[in-house]
């Protein structure tokens, strides 16, 4: 093959639109490492979860992607673009739903979505059609002509989601998109996130809700204290826990952590919650132990179940979340 044929083949190829972060480090005030050498790659069409406890550095990472913050060192690239060197390109190629409420007090929901779509570069007709589809898809038609000031937090959150996805960038960054959103509409929102993936967007989902992430992401990274401590598909991350069960014991208020039997492989305590990893063969003695704790008044109730992504997360970060209990 001659040099000229190589060149012409290269020109016709669709460029590689993967997102690559390499060694991204953000240090505040010379000492606080909010991000520490984070390297990850997200391909077009992937929904990628960024999980971690509050203050882990998830939002710091995505703010460097969108150009609100500048990495102390490291590279952030999207396709042929260097997003650190060219924040203008980052703003055009990435859509960003921040955690904070959208400034739409005096906007009608439909207006806010359409205008953001136009600002994002969409043509009027497509933006109008997409707006209608999002309003119907998220079931917020009742509020389409209501101004932001009169909306509940959840509806306003959904309006914000529609604003940033009506004309999405190659990368869509969603920082805790389901905060305040009711369970029914959370499912509708995940459908829309899936749709974005099908259309070729790389979606970053920043969350501390492990249960939701497990259901909706293709791959995920766990970030703790600024470092990426694990990455992979939900099942690959759970593979280390295969054959394990989770025994969750709600301790009585004020009760100390009871002595653990030798067959407990791993445990973590947060508040009244004691979560222990046990082997499948130890299920029966696990139940007997938990019942014994309840009879002695050390514990109030227990639950035994299959290991989840949350157990992996707990093992990695030592952080027990309350969402699981709320979700029932």
């Amino acid at each position, binding site marked *: 093959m001659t040099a000229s044929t190589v060149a012409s083949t290269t020109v016709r190829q669709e*460029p590689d*639109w993967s997102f690559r972060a390499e060694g991204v480090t953000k240090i505040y005030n010379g000492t606080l490492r909010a991000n520490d050498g984070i390297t990850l790659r997200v391909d077009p069409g992937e929904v990628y979860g960024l999980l971690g406890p509050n203050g882990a550095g998830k939002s710091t990472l995505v*703010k460097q992607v*969108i*150009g*609100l*913050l*500048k990495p102390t060192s490291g590279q952030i690239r999207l*396709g042929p*673009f260097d997003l650190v060197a060219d*924040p*203008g*390109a980052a*703003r*055009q*190629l*990435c859509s*960003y739903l*921040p*955690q*904070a*409420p*959208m*400034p739409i*007090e*005096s*906007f009608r929901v439909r*207006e*806010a979505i359409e*205008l*953001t779509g*136009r*600002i*994002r*570069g969409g043509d009027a007709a*497509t933006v109008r*059609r*997409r707006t209608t*589809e999002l309003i*119907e898809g998220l079931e917020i038609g009742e509020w389409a002509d209501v*101004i932001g*000031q009169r909306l509940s937090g959840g509806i306003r959150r959904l309006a914000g989601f529609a604003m940033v996805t009506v*004309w*999405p*960038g*190659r990368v869509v960054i969603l920082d805790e998109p389901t905060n305040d959103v009711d369970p029914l509409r959370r499912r509708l929102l995940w459908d829309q996130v899936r*749709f*974005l993936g099908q*259309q*070729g*967007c790389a979606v970053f989902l920043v969350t501390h809700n492990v249960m939701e992430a497990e259901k909706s992401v293709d791959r995920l990274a766990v970030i703790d204290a600024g470092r990426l401590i694990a990455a992979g598909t939900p099942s690959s991350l759970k593979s280390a826990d295969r054959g394990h069960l989770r025994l969750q014991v709600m301790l009585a208020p004020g009760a100390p952590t009871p002595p653990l039997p030798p067959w407990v492989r791993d445990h973590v305590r947060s508040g009244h919650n004691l979560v222990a990893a046990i082997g499948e063969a130890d299920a029966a003695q696990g139940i007997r132990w938990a019942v014994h704790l309840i009879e002695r008044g050390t514990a109030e109730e227990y639950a035994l179940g299959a290991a989840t992504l949350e157990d992996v997360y707990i093992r990695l970060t030592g952080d027990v979340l309350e969402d699981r209990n709320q979700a029932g």
Partner: protein
Amino acid sequence: MAITAIRPTGEVRSGAAEWARAFRAMIRWNLLSLRLWLALIASVQVLAGAGFVLGIALFFDHIPASAALYVTTGVPVINLILVGLVLGPQLVADQKIQHSYEFLRTLPVPQTAVAAAWYTVCLISGIPGVLISLLIAEARYQITLAPSPQIVPAILLTAFTGTMMGYAIGHAVPSPMTTRLITQLLIFAMFGFTPILFPVGQLPGWLGTVNWWLPFGHMATIVRAGLTTGMVTGVATSYLVVAVWGAASAVLAAWAMGRRR
């Protein structure tokens, strides 16, 4: 329902057409953001203008013709910079308090288009107040003004510098509380201690010197030059001072808006 396919683009837009599109969109964004307050802003503009024009006369038994002329030709400056210099930074401070500031900074629009859109909104919001103030003054004091085409650049530059100073205060001052204090101080200083509504000779010498370096008296000079004949001198210098303040503020605002921590 057929679902609209979206193919995220890999194209980064630029050029004059893109700038104009962003400019129009941001004018609409500003107008919608202010929708609930537009009527209030318009009323404040008219009341502020009319209030000064009519109120100053209450200080005198018979207001001297020269004082009436100074007030009449100074009030337009207040109308032109009130929204940009006072309301503008307070709106930015509110965005910072409500944490929406970061979202607005991530909108994919050239920052110059964002600034130009805000300038346009401030300018348009000032002009009705200017006209009504002048009409009231002419009726109240039987003054005959002699507007010349020079009034156009005077209005455009005064509003520009006021808006850019407000923009710089809003974006470059990190603390919203400090921003609010600065704007309060500005209102107080502007009305009492700058030669907008009265001749600079009425100020103590040192304060006159300080004001020579500030833009407010010069704004009044260039507006007066456009509304009257032979009332003011040193107009070219005044244009220069106002333009330098406008340009310096625009550069400071651009730096603050483009800054990544």
